[in-house]
């Protein structure tokens, strides 16, 4: 533990003498920082996408599973009576927590996007909707359908499963894809750093040989490279993440007019998650450079 903390301290604060033994490389350094930044930027979006689809799946799964709708399709003069009858049946149905008929104003609001706000519902044979909220145990949909069919001929029970399931599945799939993308970006950062570190080690073969000759340990030599690439990956990824988060901050928020779509972005403590990306990039860089340096040094006498 003591050794690790010493290493970590050396990694962060560095050893001015050790840093200088590897010659500075302007162009490739900038490329490494840029690539790390770009990947972090994409990773933040993949993460936001995953979290948003996760929220969507939970919302659809949760809220819609708890509710059903009964449509009363009946001639205008029988509609009120059939609605009453249906509500009566629902009150005696086990598993129904709450049931109520939507009033005209609510139905109008639902139809407004299609017909405009000035629609006169009385003039149209619009079915009456009854919102049914289930208890956790749920109710027996088939049994309820049979009872409704017997007593309220105009009632149609829609328990939402038909269209809910594929949506929840799609949202879950999207979430999975998002995490997969984030993971792939992480692996790409590691691959990119390995390539850059290998190139740097090859370009500095003479430096390494000289250091070996004058008694430098493998650890000392590797440290100079590891520190460099870890800091580059961390810095680049930090800038990329912050830019991506700023972009997400200025996305339009989820609103009622947006319908059931939730805002792409982070909510609550999720805003801290993108900060793990620079840390992960630094970890990947640390181990990738360490492995590359280890391989390169083993070949030297």
């Amino acid at each position, binding site marked *: 533990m003591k050794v690790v903390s010493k290493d970590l301290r050396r990694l962060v604060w560095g050893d001015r003498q*050790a840093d200088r033994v590897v010659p500075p490389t302007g162009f490739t350094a900038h490329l490494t920082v840029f690539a790390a930044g770009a990947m972090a930027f994409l990773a933040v979006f993949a993460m936001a996408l995953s979290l948003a689809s996760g929220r969507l799946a939970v919302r659809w799964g949760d809220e819609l599973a708890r509710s059903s709708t009964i449509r009363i399709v009946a001639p205008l003069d029988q509609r009120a009576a059939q609605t009453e009858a249906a509500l009566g049946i629902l009150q005696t149905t086990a598993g129904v927590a709450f049931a109520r008929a939507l009033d005209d104003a609510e139905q109008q609001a639902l139809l407004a996007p299609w017909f405009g706000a000035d629609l006169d519902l009385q003039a149209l044979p619009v079915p009456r909707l009854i919102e049914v909220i289930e208890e956790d145990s749920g109710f027996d949909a088939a049994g309820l359908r049979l009872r409704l069919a017997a007593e309220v001929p105009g009632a149609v029970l829609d328990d939402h499963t038909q269209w809910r399931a594929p949506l929840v599945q799609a949202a879950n799939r999207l979430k999975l894809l998002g995490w997969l993308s984030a993971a792939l970006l992480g692996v790409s950062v590691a691959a990119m750093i390995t390539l850059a570190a290998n190139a740097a080690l090859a370009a500095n073969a*003479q*430096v390494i040989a000289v250091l070996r000759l004058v*008694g430098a340990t493998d650890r*000392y030599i590797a440290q100079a490279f590891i520190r460099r690439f870890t800091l580059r990956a961390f810095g680049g990824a930090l800038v990329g993440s912050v830019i991506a988060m700023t972009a997400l901050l200025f996305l339009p928020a989820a609103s009622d007019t947006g319908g059931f779509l939730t805002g792409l972005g982070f909510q609550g403590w999720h805003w801290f998650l993108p900060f793990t990306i620079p840390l992960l990039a630094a970890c990947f860089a640390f181990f990738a450079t360490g492995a590359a340096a280890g391989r390169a*040094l083993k070949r030297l006498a």
Partner: protein
Amino acid sequence: MIELNNVAYSYGGGALLSEISLKLAPGSFHFLTGPSGAGKTTLLKLCYGALLPTSGEVTFFGDDLRKMERDGIAVLRRRMGVVHQDCQFLNHLSVAENIALPLSVSGRHVDAAGDDLTELMAWVGLTHRADALPPELSGGERQRAALARAVIMSPDVILADEPTGNVDWEMSQRLLRLLVELNKMGKTVLVATHDLSLIRAAKSQVQARVLRIANQRVQLAGADL
């Protein structure tokens, strides 16, 4: 200090060195000579652990090379100064920083050794070149810088591979005097060279033994030199 016991070394093709037994005693001065390609550099590399013998054993200060870890060899090199014919430096650091490099890689503070460094630079005559970059140095200056770098840790042994290969006679005499001075300070010195006149010149200054590589073996050369 360095002991080779019945050592053989072969490259992919065939044997280069065989049945080599050699003992470098503390304070001794050895020349290693032989035609080009005879294996002088290989023997020297065996002596500082850059190559492992194909058979036989090499011991440093009593420790078996085969049992040493890579870090052990690194620490060992701090007790040996090595000078190559084509000495390499870190080209982006100044001559002074290059000479102090063994100090910084072993974790010592270069600033603390300030006086030693100044003295050493004066001893090899490079004080005025302290801030120059290695590519700006002449062949002789490079060799002297390499020698200074080799001795800054005050090593017990100095191994030099053709240190005078790239310099004129005047400069090789100067390098030889530096090596002789180090030997008089108690350091063990092994110099590989094909330059017999250098060996003859040394004979008047120091009691040197001459080892010759011939037919894959090392023999103690007679007084004919």
